[in-house]
């Protein structure tokens, strides 16, 4: 990028480091241009676009059924929730009421997705602060969820299980049994997560008071999800704009007010417990019924604008469809949680050390394809 201007604006002892796009802590292909004085970070400038595929442009040529599978490839760790966002937007536009069964199944898989994403994040968080073992423990538990997905949806990551109007297939007969097994297993493992990392004095020293984000800044920078909730901004879309079966269940919104990396960490750990409780409320009460309602082969949305918010594992995903009445959207915008959350990175890491930057990035929990789209 503009190395020359950066060089010219250097003070005497500052220097410039290129962190990424191939760097273990940037979780993919994010490039950070760091201006550093010794170990102290003076400026962080993200350079994006290494995995930009222009999904929004591709959506403009695809039919609404086809758009769904593109959203798998944005935030691939909460692919089901992304799928659901598009489907909900289309269903709301067409004024289709999906069966109760679909709503419940969608919510269960949403929460499983959230747990799966958070377990991966937990493992990677441990790895970023130097505890490599947590990575394997996180993946061990995540593997069980992936098996459930594979059995029911056919794929482990890019599931594409939702279609406008319902689900692609009914749940597998083993689904309920396996989910219950997983919940029982995971309830014994979550306390271990706490023993291994949460309580650990080194981990607390590394994260407490690091990357502090005030509530006002969280709102101003458009933060959402665990990042905003770690700062005390109550923004859970599941609470304020409930979708699918979320209006029938009770759960607490994980909220911490410290705003540091440790608070964001605790929010995610607590969210896993909440997700378990949501699944437990629903798993025994999956109503009988169809798994989809018939839609036309060619879906045409009425002229207008449709906005659908959902809460992915990373925050608020917005799907904004502008339709002119045709079979393709005129404009499709994905408001990705990652881009807004990343935009505050410079704000909260300046003045910290390189180690702080890594810990903060881990708790912001970015998924680069979600930012680049």
């Amino acid at each position: 990028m503009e190395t020359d201007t950066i060089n010219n604006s250097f003070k005497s002892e500052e220097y410039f480091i290129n962190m990424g796009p191939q760097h273990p802590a940037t979780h993919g292909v994010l490039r950070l241009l760091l201006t550093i004085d010794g170990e102290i970070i003076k400026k962080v400038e993200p350079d994006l676009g290494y995995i930009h595929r222009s999904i929004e442009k591709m959506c403009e040529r695809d039919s609404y059924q086809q758009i769904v599978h593109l959203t798998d490839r944005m935030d691939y760790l909460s692919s089901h929730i992304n799928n659901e966002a598009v489907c909900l937007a289309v269903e709301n536009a067409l004024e289709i009421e999906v069966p109760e069964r679909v709503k419940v199944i969608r919510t269960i898989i949403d929460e499983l997705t959230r747990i799966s994403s958070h377990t991966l994040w937990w493992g990677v968080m441990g790895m970023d602060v130097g505890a490599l073992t947590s990575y394997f423990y996180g993946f061990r538990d995540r593997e069980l969820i992936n098996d459930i997905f594979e059995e029911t949806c056919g794929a482990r990551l890019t599931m594409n299980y939702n279609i406008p109007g319902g689900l692609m297939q009914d749940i597998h007969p083993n689904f309920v049994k396996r989910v219950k097994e997983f919940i029982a297993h995971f309830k014994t493992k979550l306390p271990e997560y706490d023993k291994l990392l949460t309580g650990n004095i080194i981990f607390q020293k590394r994260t407490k008071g690091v990357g502090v984000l005030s509530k006002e800044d969280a709102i101003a920078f458009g933060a959402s999800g665990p990042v905003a909730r770690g700062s005390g901004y109550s923004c859970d879309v599941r609470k304020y704009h409930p979708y699918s079966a979320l209006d029938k269940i009770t759960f607490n919104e994980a909220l911490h007010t410290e705003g540091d990396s440790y608070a964001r960490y605790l929010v995610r750990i607590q969210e896993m417990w909440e997700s378990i409780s949501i699944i437990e409320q629903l798993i025994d009460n999956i109503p009988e019924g169809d798994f989809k309602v018939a839609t036309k082969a060619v879906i045409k949305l009425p002229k207008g604008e449709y906005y659908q918010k959902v809460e992915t594992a990373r925050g608020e995903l917005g799907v904004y469809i502008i339709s002119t009445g045709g079979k393709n959207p005129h404009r499709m915008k994905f408001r990705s949680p990652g881009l807004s959350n990343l935009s505050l990175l410079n704000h909260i890491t300046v003045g910290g050390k390189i180690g702080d930057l890594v810990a903060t990035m881990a708790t912001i929990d970015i998924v680069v394809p979600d930012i680049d789209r």
Partner: protein
Amino acid sequence: MSYFSDIYHGIRTLLTGMGVTGKYFLHSRKGAITQQYPDNRDTLKMFERFRGEVVMPHDENNEHSCTGCQKCEIACPNGSIEIIWDRQVDPETGKKKKLIDKHIYHLGMCTQCGLCIDACPSDAIKWAQNFENAVYDRSQLTRVLNRPGSKVRAGVEE
């Protein structure tokens, strides 16, 4: 005083952490989650819904049930399916009928979204559970799904 309680607290939390890993170390014999992949090929079975690649099942008479309606081709977001078809006279009814010549599937472009199989009205294509799809030449990823000489099963209508 908090100085010493800090030290005590710190050491205690560290030992707790070591307890967790130590427990797994002792159980490592049977607790290992590693799948020794190429060795367990025989026992490794994918779930029945697993999306490996699109195949067209043929029965013992070398007949499939693809009518050439092209719904899968339209449903595919990536253009991975191409159907070359022809109108031929059906020898039984004597009417002209749409028959497939080649059902071409580009595995290299497929994103395993499953829309084609969802769209197929006659269940002519389905998912195969094989997952070792790597080949040495990209052209091998383009496959013709209907076998040579196969024809559509009688009674399968569009």
